[in-house]
């Protein structure tokens, strides 16, 4: 029994020591996740820190999936995601004692982009799917020049890829030989520099490239809000539990509901939630 008592005392001492070491800092906010939502989070952070000097916000962009992992592992306060949490992520959060609360902070349309010299101005969802699955491989099959199509995609860990996979590919397998790149900016850059390329990016990443109409509808804030543009999606922030009113976290996450927050969202090329 003496042995058990000694063990219990050791456990209690370790417990007290660790409890003291893990106290959090309410003015230090860590944000991690989507590269698509990243510009919004960064702009929010810059604005919020400008208004509240005592608050420090760090924003990382490791992808939607890694944002979810960070929240589940209590490594961040806010996970930014360009897709909703998967069932498996919700289950992992529950098992970790994390109450994942969803905040839809903005809307986005996925623009299908080509080089500015490309004569096409419109593609149907089916044609885009056929290009990405390898059924259409040359622009001449679509009335263009005799050029092999260079297919650019986001890496499969990204929320943008998963949205595209759901909304356009409808779970069909991407063609072999497609190029995978790690960010929206990298896709745009690749398409800007490659005449025969096609890619897809968030609405905010279309400068210097040509955005195609999809099913005859141009990607824009108006068409996304009117739900006429077929490749649109909400953008998310997830927190562990509901934010407490008056805290820096609450102020930061709910910026999207304020007039200033909506202006920031528009400035970054996304669409505020009505």
């Amino acid at each position, binding site marked *: 029994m003496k042995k058990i008592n000694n*063990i219990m005392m050791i456990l209690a001492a370790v417990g007290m020591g*660790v409890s003291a070491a893990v106290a959090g800092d309410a003015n230090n906010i860590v944000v991690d996740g989507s590269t698509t939502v990243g*510009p919004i989070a960064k702009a929010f952070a810059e604005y919020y820190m400008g208004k509240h000097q005592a608050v420090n916000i760090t924003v990382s962009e490791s992808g939607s999936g890694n944002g979810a992992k960070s929240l589940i592992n209590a490594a961040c306060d806010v996970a930014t995601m360009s*897709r909703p949490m*998967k069932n498996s992520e919700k289950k992992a959060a529950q098992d970790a004692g994390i109450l994942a609360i969803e905040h839809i902070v903005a809307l986005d349309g996925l623009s299908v982009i080509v080089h500015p010299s490309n004569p096409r101005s419109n593609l149907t969802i089916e044609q885009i799917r056929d290009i990405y699955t390898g059924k259409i491989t040359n622009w001449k099959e679509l009335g263009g020049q005799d050029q092999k199509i260079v297919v650019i995609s986001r890496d499969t860990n990204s929320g943008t890829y998963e949205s595209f996979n759901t909304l356009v590919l409808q779970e069909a397998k991407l063609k072999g030989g497609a190029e995978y790149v790690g960010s929206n900016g990298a896709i*745009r850059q690749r398409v800007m520099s490659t005449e025969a390329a096609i890619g897809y990016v968030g609405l905010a990443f279309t400068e210097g490239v040509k955005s195609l109409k999809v099913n005859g509808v141009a990607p824009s804030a108006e068409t996304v809000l009117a739900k006429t543009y077929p490749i649109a999606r909400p953008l998310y922030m997830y927190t562990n*539990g509901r934010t407490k009113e008056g805290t820096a976290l609450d102020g930061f996450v709910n910026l999207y509901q304020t007039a200033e927050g909506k202006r920031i969202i528009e400035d970054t090329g996304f669409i505020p939630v009505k």
Partner: protein
Amino acid sequence: MAASVGGMCLAAETNAPAAATPVPVKTWADSITLKGDFRYRYETIADDAKKNASKETYTRERERVRARLAAEAKVNDQAKVVIGFSTGGNDPISGNQTLGDGGQKKEMKLDLAYLDFNFLNDTSATELHGYAGKMKNPFMTMNDDLMWDGDLSPEGLALKGQTGNDVVTAYGNLGYIWIQERDSKDAAQLLAGQGALKFQFIPEVSLTVGASYYGFQNLQGYDVIDWEGKNNAYGNTTKKGSVSGSTTNKAWATEFTPVVYFASLDFWVAGLPVSIFGQELSNTDASKLDQGHLYGVSLGKAKNKGTYEIGYTYTELEKDATVGMWTDSDRWGGGTDGKGSKIYAKYQIMKNLQLGAAYFKDDKGIASGKETSYDRMQLDLVAAF
């Protein structure tokens, strides 16, 4: 491209044009994930049914280790194979190895070997997975469970599905499980079906209700399956079985078709998850001693550094309620024909390192009218990787 603006770390892209950064080419090693855990356990057992030479209850003290290592290999976008090893002997519900046998090398055996095929994309609200091989338990279980020990890895085929929306999720699981293959007699198998509904009223509150049907085939009249070689039926009623030399084996006296109803109310209090759960079991093939009950509550989750979990469970499992060889091996020493309470606590010391303590206060041998007390205390240090 990393920059710093005030306290803000800009770790990736901005809206400005960025250089194309192709994703590195993946190698075979990228498709394999290694996972495992190690547990060091100190435990005491005071079993009134086991007296020492002075006819006194002796408190056994021992220290044990359990180590598990599994590789998860992505076959393609829809399939993966899991192969895992665990310390342990022939016991299907324990990977423990007791320290103190002259420093002998410990056995490590195949614990998992299965294919997981995902019929749908897991981003959709509907999921359907098929499993083949020696797998993790495919059935929904409670924090503690009347039917299953957590270390059991069933063998056969299983199908797990779920569909729903933000408010209601429906779960359905099917199992075709091998129990004993016999060369000249019908094999013992388990055909099982399970259905459940989860109602998510608000993010903080959910209710899960469900039912399970476990149809064990060809156990009655067959010799009990005993990996210890002690003719042990793990609590179940027996009759005379086959004769082997001078030994008359024990055979199961009844068949088992347990039906289990279960419910779990999960909610959050002061930032901590609370779960109140229960199971009611009835073996529809037995005429008596065929009931099981389990009620419990847990608070918190020990996962991230500094988090903790505490809980209490009351369990009662009559002699022929279910097959004793696969039930929890800790409460009253395993098997059926017992009742009692368990309290436990877990504390996450740091990332992937956890302390745990559990105390069991049980009675066993109830059907005979000569019940004896069984107290067990466990202290665990668990490292996961």
